[in-house]
Structures are given as structure tokens and as C-alpha cells.
């Protein structure tokens, strides 16, 4: 049976327990949720740890009350050979944005994080592409409701045929 790719390039809004139960596929950039292929995710929660290595990365965890999602924000764009073939001006923009995001990441704040779903030591994580700090305390609750609504109305549609 072909895998459903309709959500492959969408930042799917997931609760931590749902995110942490994603299954790896043969492609390391793609994960499966009940037969639907995903590569990007958005989560919202409280930052509960932060490990900062200057010019390398910030590793942090986001706790949304259903689980803790490990996140990594790379800060090595100007030194990494991975970016050496790309346009230097674009790489500088990405690097500057990452530096700004890193400054926002503090233990105790509520953050909305988007990025690629990756794995590290067999644990699923988010490789962060952008970070927004949520000042309104209701935003985390609204994210829960978004996740519930999207799961029922969108992400889980057609899942039952796999029963």
C-alpha cells in the first residue's frame, strides 16, 4: 500500500507524546505517523533545559505536559562544510537568524518551535528552523486545542482504514 505523502512538507502541529511516538522510515528525513509520512513539525511548550555550545549548537527540551521534546538549533552555519556550497549571503542570513533564536531560548519561557524531524541516538527530535516566544499564557492551551482539532479533522482522517 502506498504511503500517504499529503502532509510530507507541512509543519504538523503535534503534542509531545504524539511526536515522540513517530516511527522512522528507510529515509532518515522522513517519519511515519499511522501510515502518513511527515518531515516537519511544530510544537509549543515550556523550555525546561538548555545546553549552549557557542558557535556550535543550542540543545534544549520543550515540555508541553504530555512529554519532553528534544530540540537542537545549529549555530555552525559559517563553519560547516554542509553550507559551504550555498550562497554565502543566504548562509549569513540563516546564521544570523539562528543566533537571534538562540538568544531567545531560556529555561522557563514558552516557545513555539518549528523544524525538521530528525533522530539522534534513536530518539526523535526537532532540528529547529525557527523559534517564537509566546508571551500570552493562553497560547499553549490554544496549541493543545489546535493539535486535537487537526488530529481529528486532518491528520487522523483515513487512519481507520489501516485498522
Amino acid at each position, binding site marked *: 500500500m502506498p504511503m500517504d505523502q499529503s502532509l510530507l512538507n507541512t509543519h504538523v502541529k503535534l*503534542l509531545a507524546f504524539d511526536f515522540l511516538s513517530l516511527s522512522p522510515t528507510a529515509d532518515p528525513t522522513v517519519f*511515519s505517523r*499511522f501510515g502518513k509520512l511527515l518531515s516537519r513539525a511544530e510544537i509549543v511548550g*515550556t523550555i525546561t533545559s538548555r545546553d549552549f555550545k557557542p558557535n556550535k549548537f543550542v540543545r534544549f527540551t520543550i515540555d508541553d*505536559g504530555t512529554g519532553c521534546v*528534544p530540540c537542537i538549533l545549529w549555530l555552525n552555519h559559517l563553519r560547516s562544510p554542509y553550507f559551504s556550497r550555498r550562497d554565502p549571503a543566504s548562509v549569513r542570513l540563516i546564521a544570523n537568524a539562528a543566533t537571534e533564536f538562540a538568544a531567545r531560548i531560556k529555561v*522557563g519561557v514558552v516557545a513555539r518551535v518549528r523544524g525538521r524531524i530528525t533522530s539522534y541516538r534513536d530518539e526523535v527530535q526537532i532540528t529547529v528552523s525557527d523559534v517564537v516566544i509566546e508571551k500570552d499564557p493562553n497560547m499553549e492551551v490554544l496549541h493543545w486545542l489546535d493539535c486535537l482539532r487537526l488530529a481529528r479533522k486532518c491528520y487522523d482522517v483515513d*487512519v481507520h482504514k*489501516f485498522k
Partner: protein
Amino acid sequence: MASLAIKSGALVTLPELHPSSPFYEEGASLRVTGKLQHYYVETAIAIIADGSATLNIDTQHLRDLSFRVGSIYQFIGELHIQQENGAILQARVGRNVDGLDLNLYHQSLQLLRQFHADRMNNSSNLMQF
């Protein structure tokens, strides 16, 4: 990996946190929300309330958080059961959540738990790819 050592704070309301509750156990990682009733500067103990239920919070590890009686706070930490003084939450994270719609919070928490429980029940029936 550092994240493996950090437990998620289970969402719990203060009225649910009584000795017969499954959340009420030594070392349990919890997230609690309540209105600040008292704050003792000398001990860094805060007392938060939700209705008639209260909980002591040890805030000695928190920095950059100012306490104002009457404001609403949310804490994540580990519960410690004390024989004489009841339970106290050793907070590792805290923030002011003034403006939080508590009715929406409580109703959404019930929906979240139901969704989580349904998913746990159904996931074993769904094919994994």
C-alpha cells in the same frame, strides 16, 4: 543525552492533588497552576491556591521570577511528600501566567487527557508503518 534525564511535568490541578491521587507520589514530576497566596522571602516558599486547594512550592532554584500575591503562577517540578507538612513541589521552572483563562485551561485539560487516553487505547489497534 541531557533530555533523557528530564521528565515531563504531568498536568495536574491542585484540587486533584490529594493523597489518594495517582499524581500524589514521592518524586512525581508535575506542572501545577494557582494563585499566589503567600510568599515567604526568608525560605523562598510560595503557597499557591486553586479554589480551596493549596500547595507549597519551594522556589529556591528559580531565578528572574518576581512574586506578587494575587498573581497566577505555573510551576514545573518534583513533588516531595513530607510527613509533617504534607506535600511540597520543588520547582525547577516557574512563570507568571496572569491573563490565563483558567476556565479554558481546565476544560482544555480534560479534552487533552481524553485525547491522550483515546490515542493510547487506539494506537495498539493501528498498523504501524
